[in-house]
């Protein structure tokens, strides 16, 4: 049977999500104590659309004084917020959830404009999950004694939260919702390149009537982040980002009273056995590595294919890659959007070059790439082994390193041979194999016959150098409670 190349016959017409219903200001200030206030630094930086290089808005850069104001506001709000009846606390959080749901489309469009992710993902995953997270943790506020029976628990105080640019609103929700549900107050800093949806969330928080100072949102880069980490009146740091910065944070708060949770990098092993449903697995491998342009800490960036099926799997992968649509994040047909920033694009390109220099066999989807914006075609590397840099280090881009294996013990050994331990995937139709693997793999999350699934009820987080602590589910509450 000859293969019909559908792409040659038909092309998708563009189906752009409209931008005219969104409200964006030219300039965004800091959200401190319930109000938008000018930064003491008087400095602004640009938030750029990574698909077009256009400046979307100017964002305020918070300095030490600003962080101090935010922490003071959070501290003073903590006194009454932590004493407020839990069920009333919950109602504010439910309100936030509902208001995100009501404005979901606007948030999705802004998320895609600011971060470069396909609108299909921001619309169907990021924004609904963010709303659900608030909904979920709102419900916990007055039920904590059932989560941790026979304990006496209290909120910790002021949480300093620093989040990454890959899931901007969702990460804000992961951090804020459990923290305030447990009665803490928050100073949150979104990533420098993706502050907008966090600031839009600040608008919702203001409209929801949440007492002032309970959530403060400050913007800026690494320096602003370190002011949060080092502020003496912050009681807990929650950080999601690179392992390098995570270690730095752990070092800087050593000897202080600050509690810490870290959600860091990963090099997820995606393992496909000969007895897997191959087409389903191929779809899963594609999703595991190319979801959100590979800007996913739990991305399945190391593929292990059982030797007997490696040829067919690689052939099918290439075939599937040929139909991926790379382009305008606001086009509803787009599968792969823009790389989040110039810096990240440079990092990815650096790794691709290293991969080739070290002898890897590269395969890239052929596609026309726009002159403006940051783009990287989906990339595979064959003929690589455990010692290759691109197998060891997190790239955080659409680059998949493929290796083969023969036996289960071999693949377990290879999969676990990494300093990371965030996620893994297993593809097989044999249940016992799944449970054997899930038992043996050193990872905080293991997906079987699926990949990159997230839910507010499901704990997420890594072992080893992928982080400390879990977010999501009953277990995610623990990071925001003090046990006496």
């Amino acid at each position, binding site marked *: 049977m000859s293969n019909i190349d559908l792409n040659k016959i038909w092309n998708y017409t563009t189906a752009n999500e409209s931008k005219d219903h969104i409200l964006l200001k030219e300039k965004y200030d800091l959200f401190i104590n319930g109000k938008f206030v000018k930064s003491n630094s008087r400095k602004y930086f640009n938030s750029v659309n990574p698909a077009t290089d256009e400046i979307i808005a100017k964002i305020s850069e918070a300095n030490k004084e600003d962080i101090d104001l935010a922490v003071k506001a959070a501290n003073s709000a903590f006194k009454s917020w932590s004493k407020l009846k839990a069920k009333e606390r*919950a109602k504010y959080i439910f309100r936030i959830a509902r208001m995100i749901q009501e404005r979901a489309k606007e948030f999705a469009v802004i998320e895609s404009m600011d971060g470069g992710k396909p609108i299909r993902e921001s619309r169907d995953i990021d924004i609904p999950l963010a709303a659900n997270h608030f909904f979920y943790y709102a419900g916990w506020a007055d039920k904590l004694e059932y989560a941790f029976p026979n304990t006496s628990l209290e909120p910790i105080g002021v949480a300093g939260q620093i989040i990454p640019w890959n899931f901007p609103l969702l990460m804000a929700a992961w951090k804020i919702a459990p923290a305030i549900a447990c009665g803490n107050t928050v100073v949150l800093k979104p990533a420098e390149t993706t502050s907008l949806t966090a600031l839009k969330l600040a608008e919702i928080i203001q409209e929801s009537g949440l007492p002032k100072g309970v959530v403060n949102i400050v913007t800026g880069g690494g320096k602003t982040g370190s002011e949060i980490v080092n502020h003496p009146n912050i009681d807990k740091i929650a950080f999601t980002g690179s392992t390098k910065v995570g270690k730095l944070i752990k070092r800087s708060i050593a000897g202080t009273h600050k509690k810490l949770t870290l959600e860091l990098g990963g090099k997820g092993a995606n393992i496909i056995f000969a007895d897997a449903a191959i087409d389903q697995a191929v779809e899963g491998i594609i999703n595991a590595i190319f979801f959100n342009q590979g800007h996913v800490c739990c991305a399945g960036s190391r593929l292990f294919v059982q030797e007997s099926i490696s040829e067919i799997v690689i052939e099918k992968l290439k075939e599937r890659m040929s139909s991926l649509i790379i382009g305008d994040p606001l086009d509803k047909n787009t599968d792969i959007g823009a790389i989040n920033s110039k810096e990240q694009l440079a990092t990815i390109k650096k790794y691709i070059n290293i991969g080739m220099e070290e002898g890897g066999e590269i395969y890239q989807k052929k596609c026309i790439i726009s002159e403006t914006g940051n783009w990287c075609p989906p990339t595979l590397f064959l003929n690589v082994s455990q010692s290759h840099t691109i197998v060891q280090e997190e790239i955080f881009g659409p680059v998949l390193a493929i290796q083969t294996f023969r036996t289960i013990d071999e693949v377990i050994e290879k999969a676990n041979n990494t300093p990371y331990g965030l996620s893994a995937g297993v593809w097989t139709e044999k*249940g*016992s194999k799944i*449970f054997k693997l899930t*038992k043996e793999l050193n990872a905080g999350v293991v997906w079987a016959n699926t990949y990159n699934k997230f839910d507010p009820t499901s704990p997420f987080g890594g072992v080893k150098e992928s982080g400390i602590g879990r977010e999501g589910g009953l277990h995610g509450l623990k990071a925001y409670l003090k046990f006496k």
Partner: protein
Amino acid sequence: MARINVLKTYKNFIGGKFPRTESGRYFQIKNGNNELLANMCLSSRKDFRNAVVFARKVQKSWQNKSSLNRGQVLYRVAEMLEGRKSQFIEELMMTGLSKLHAKNEVELSIDRLIYYAGWSDKFQQVFSSVNPVASNHFNFSLLQSVGVVSVISPNEYSLLGMISVIAPIIVGGNTCVILSSEKNPMVGISFAEVLNTSDVPAGVVNILTGKRKELLSHFASHKDVNAIIYCGDNNQEIKEIQHLSSENLKRVKIYKHKNWDHNSSQSPFFIETCQELKTIWHPNKV
């Protein structure tokens, strides 16, 4: 000339519709001054059996909705009730409650719905387990809804009592047929109007009005009902329920307490009581 009020006709709530009782009978609810408030449906065995058919029909699909979705639906019920707060306060006052008490009862009712909406996607984590068996198996236990539940709603706290009983039943994926408070059944039917505008699928909650004496035995003996909840402390009735429910080994839960306004009247155990535990074994050795 003063405007003449339009009076509401109170009917049953079965399968998402408001039919009159097929028996054509009625009973009267009067206020303290012996003035007629409403002619209520005096429901029969046939009404109950019809309601069970609807409850059974929709049970699977209700159970198969995601926990998140059931939580959202319950939250929506709370939102609708909040919007009709004044109506319910008035209706409770008509039957003799002070404004303060009526307001308190309605507000607690809304909060209770939200409390259980929150439990929708949480109780499973509290009650289920992974069991460390000695053999090479992955073994876990989880809760599943029991099915169709018949409910003799409390006479006290006609609104709050009913909500306190049915919210944990439906949030766990069950469907139910309820006998509204015999003393004050009106508000139960008005609550049906709230349910009917809140995305609760037709048949998930069915509400009848009538007499315990007549209906109790059918609620307890129906073969297609999996559990019965009885609110009250009449030992004769309790014995009858326990006896009749033996035929199909219906699960029986008796709530003798009457302080439905108290915090002890809400907990995840109210959900767990209408759940069955299922244990699953799976080999983990290749």
